[in-house]
């Protein structure tokens, strides 16, 4: 049981790291601001989600796990909002870079 949970943790956190790596690569390589925004939010959403799933078996009790999930939800919320705001400002002023 413990071994299976550890395996799940390692697998989920590794997969999450891959998303962060891909997001960083996209941030550096994508041609325009909107595409870069897209890769960035994907890394936050899925990458952090997978990392949190991986950390859940290691959390201190149910409350600790819940806090991890709340952290993920809050990051989602702020990430999505900031993404929208940046995209709006790009639409208003036109792409600069």
């Amino acid at each position: 049981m413990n071994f299976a949970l550890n395996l799940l943790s390692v697998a989920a956190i590794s997969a999450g790291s891959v998303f962060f790596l891909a997001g960083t690569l996209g941030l550096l390589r994508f041609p325009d601001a909107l595409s870069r925004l897209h890769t960035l939010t994907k890394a936050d959403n899925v990458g952090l989600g997978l990392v949190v799933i991986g950390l859940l078996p290691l959390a201190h009790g149910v409350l600790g796990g819940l806090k991890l999930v709340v952290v993920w939800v809050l990051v989602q919320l702020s990430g999505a909002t900031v993404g929208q705001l940046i995209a709006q400002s790009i639409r208003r002023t036109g792409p600069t870079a």
Partner: protein
Amino acid sequence: MIVQTLDIGLAALVLTLAGWTVLAHATFPAVVSYVAYGLLLSLIWVRLFAVDVALTEAAIGGGVTGVLLIGAASKLRKAALSTTERELTPPLRWAIAALCVLATLVLATIVLSLPDPPPTLAPEAVQNIAATGLGNPVTAVLIAYRAFDTMLEKCVLVLAVVGVWSLASDRYWGGAPGAPRAVTWDGALTFFAQLLPPLGILIGIRIFWIGADEPGGAFQGGAILAAMWMIIMMARLADAPAIGERWMRIALAAGPIVFLGVGILGFVAGWGFLAYPAGFAKPLIIFVEIFMTLSIAATLPMLVAGPPIRAPRP
């Protein structure tokens, strides 16, 4: 081994970002990298097991200072369009750079010449903590052992707001800073500003409350409460209060006044200036901290809101 490598990587990243912030040509990129620098610095504090400092660095160094600087940068950009910007002459630039390098070298020399192990009061702080009724030695230092410093810090915050307000022109004195409440709302920011504050207020109060025994406290909790108010004002869900409002001025001054009042009470009652009576220390400390949290939650948003730009209502 892996952990050491990560630590060295983190330190190298912070130093690179610091250099980049200094050398950045435009104001806005410099501000953005400064915010990132503050957040990475808070990770370093976590690695040094100073979670209280990490929380403060993330909230103040990254968050509030970041908002203040972004506001300043965007105002500078508007100002640069109307007036011709006067560049610093190269000799002056080099003189400033040389002074900064000198300050860095002096600090580095001092840090590197500390005896090993460095002198510490940590054992004494932990030994006497039972007298305060607190479990978190950092809070005990802030509110009991070094109460005088913390009290003065709170006074400085109020003075900072007075400084910002003093930039107001005469006809706006007593009026409100910032844009008025929007007539219609839409978009992501409004949704965010409606959704987040209920949760944020809970988290802020909890961080303040657990500060007695765990990392947290008046400053960190107050900063989170302040952030919630800032979001509401930025989304223009509510008016920024006029600076002449009595309740606002009371909220700003309540922290230092109650702190000083309790301090003087100790002087009169005989247990000492800014000290707490044995057996009744913790309730008194929490009483002071409640008002300090309130003042911080009021001060930081008013600092960000800036000087009043609207005439007071008659």
